């Protein structure tokens, strides 16, 4: 197996900082923005993005999580998944929700998150921020904010590790060949 590190902790820090500026630019501030992370690693990324927004704007940005374990389209094709937390910090109606995940791949996770979101409220708009976009979409879904575009082959694996949940920090491309 080969493993190649493509982002280190400083790269991740800069990517989140840049995405925060882009979110503010796109939405003319962050007043109506609610950040929701998709478990597992979308949650610490969402927390960091919200902290960066608060830091830039000087006002706190609400942050929560949205689990997709009950909305997957392949529940009957894979072993039971552990359920993650769903926490909505404030009513989502008339807000701009920024969904946060670590890796954007087929788009099925985001599809499930959009379904889950529809049961939680009706935000005015939903945007998607990902640390890594590795391509190979199977659904008509695209990100609004990307930390790094990472062209990959389908056989390769993209691994994100974050200090909040792992003992290391960075993004790796791994190949089993």
């Amino acid at each position: 197996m080969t493993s190649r590190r493509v982002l280190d902790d400083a790269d991740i820090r800069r990517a989140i900082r840049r995405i925060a500026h882009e979110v503010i630019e796109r939405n003319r501030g962050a007043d109506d923005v609610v950040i929701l992370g998709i478990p597992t690693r979308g949650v610490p990324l969402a927390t960091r993005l919200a902290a960066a927004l608060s830091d830039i704007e000087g006002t706190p940005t609400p942050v929560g999580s949205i689990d997709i374990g009950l909305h997957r389209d392949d529940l009957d094709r894979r072993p039971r998944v552990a359920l993650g937390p769903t926490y909505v910090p404030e009513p989502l109606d008339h807000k701009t929700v920024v969904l946060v995940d670590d890796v954007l791949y087929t788009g099925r996770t985001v599809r499930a998150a959009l379904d889950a979101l529809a049961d939680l409220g009706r935000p005015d708009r939903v945007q998607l921020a990902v640390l890594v976009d590795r391509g190979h979409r199977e659904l008509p879904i695209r990100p609004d904010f990307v930390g790094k575009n990472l062209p990959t082959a389908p056989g390769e694996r993209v691994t994100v590790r974050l200090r909040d949940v792992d003992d290391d920090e960075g993004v790796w491309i791994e190949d089993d060949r």
Partner: protein
Amino acid sequence: MRTLLGTEDLDRSALDGLLDDAETFLEVLERPIPKVPALRGRTVATMFFEPSTRTRLSFERAAKALSADTLSFSPGTSSLSKGESLKDTVQTIAAMGADLMVVRHRAVGAPARVAEWTGLPVVNGGDGAHQHPTQALLDALTIRRARGTVEGLRIGIVGDIAHSRVARSDVFAFATLGAEVTLIAPRTLLPVDLTGWPCDVSTDLDAVLGDLDVVYLLRVQTERGGASVFPSLREYLRRFGLTRERFARLRPDTVVLHPGPMNRGVEIEAAVADDPRALVLDQVTNGVAARMAVLFQLLGGADA
């Protein structure tokens, strides 16, 4: 996990996993749209050969909140009255396309037989005086939410232990979760053989009352002969009922549970039943979430 027949089968990690999932489902039930698509396209059959309102409705609510379809069987309106056997009945419903059966039957072991006959995942919804595992799960969930944990708590189960499937399921679940359980009943309402039950026994409620973190009151089951061993229901209240006077002697953070339906004035005085520390309605709400956790565990994956 293919079936849920009793709480003896559940180890600590299985119980913790179901309770964690149930907490997630409690959050789902509080959403503006309290429904998730997790079991879309699955069919849950509730086969209740004994009368039940709350348990059957609770299972059906749980199935529907997971987007499963439900088939409901009750004996009064069925071909059982034409003499159809249990085996033929459940195989017929299985052939209609049920993916899971919830079975309540007066005969001990009936749910296990239904699992053999149909090859389907089966949840025991109460068999005779044997087991009622989802009741134990919702009880454990209620205690965990009220007290933060079940571990290390002193739980007294009071009343008609001999005729109670709830008591048996609760004892094993609470003990596995690390509680100290005491059965409190007159000799005549205790099972003849308590070998293997992980609990203590007392015949004097007043002697242990002040030590308890949880008082679990069982219903006096007049339909199962539970009242006949007592001279009168008033006498039962005097010795084993939770009166206002006894309630006042409980620790301030002690909570009271009851599986319902309550006999007010028999095992619990009406004023106590209405106290905020009597968690009877929380138990009902938690029951839906606990049953969602069980249905999702049995049907929510490729290995199901």
